């Protein structure tokens, strides 16, 4: 088990060798009140999240919408009718999941 963790950490280190290690991914979403939701992202060191993969999933984990953070590290989408989850996916160890129920105006 320990070996696996060590390996996972090593793999993460290799995967993110180009990034600063001190950063963690951050993402928050707001209901715009007009049937759309906007998510904002970034990293704790201030670096941009432009281009980071964004997904909106339904309760069963099925992808409803896919997209990317824009140049301002923002991503807007049409609010699904049922329960949903937003995934900010900047790679292994760098993803944030936000439950649609926590997304308010």
């Amino acid at each position: 088990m320990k070996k696996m963790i060590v390996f996972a950490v090593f793999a993460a280190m290799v995967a993110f060798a180009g990034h600063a290690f001190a950063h963690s991914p951050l993402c928050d979403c707001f209901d715009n009140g007009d049937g759309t939701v906007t998510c904002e992202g970034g990293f704790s060191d201030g670096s941009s999240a432009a281009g980071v993969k964004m997904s909106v999933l339904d309760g069963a984990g099925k992808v409803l919408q896919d997209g990317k953070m824009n140049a301002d590290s923002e991503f807007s989408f049409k609010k699904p009718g049922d329960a949903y989850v937003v995934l900010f996916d900047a790679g292994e160890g760098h993803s944030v999941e936000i439950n649609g129920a926590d997304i308010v105006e």
Partner: protein
Amino acid sequence: MFAFMVMSLPAQAHFMMVYTPEIAKEKGGDMDFRLVFTHPAEAGHTMDMGGAQEFYALYQRGDNKAKKIDLKGYLKEIDWANPESKGKGFEAMIPRKLVRSMGDYTFVFKPGYYFEKEEGIYMQQITKLVANVGGIPGNWAEPAGLPCEIVPLIKPYGLWTGNVFKARVLSQGKPVAGAEVEVEFMSHMPDLKANVMHAKSSVDYPHDAFVTQTIFTDSEGYITFGIPKAGWWGFAALGVGPETEHKGKEMSQDAVIWVKAVDM
């Protein structure tokens, strides 16, 4: 006799207080402000600040362009009552929709002109308070482009007790050498419900000299100050602004910044 009376008053500094309970916020939400011109170390005299010229926030997340959010319309005049004085101040309830995004919010308050009768001078303290939502940094280390200001070189909303606060004093964007900077601890916490500072102090000052600490900027305009106690610290660079006269009287245009330190 009059001079004697003035001199026998405890040494205390004027501070434009721009206060909101939390500046390192995990999530955005309504922010309740009090803006009072007083002496925070001793809950001292509350002064008429001469109204408000400007109140706004410069918002920035990461590398995005800074955005100005005008907040002047949220100012509401209030009566502020410290144990031995009363005066007019402002409250401002900034709604969540304006301060919900992650990033830095540099709040800037530019009061009107206060006339200090005893000294025959006008005073105006242009005050900054930097808050963060969600942990993504922004423009906290950038000058806000004020006539005079204190620009932090250490994250002003992420200070531990014992950190050294380092900052640069600017006048019209240029560093000010040898400027006098007064430092006070907010020993009497503002009570936002009652709009007062109560008489109870969290500090016993052994001598008047400790109430207002004084430091000077170096030849490059930098100040350094070790923070000995958790809580709110105000820094006021005196007379560094370009306006030196108002209505034919001497004028001290000061730059103020408030920071909060937290125990580790």
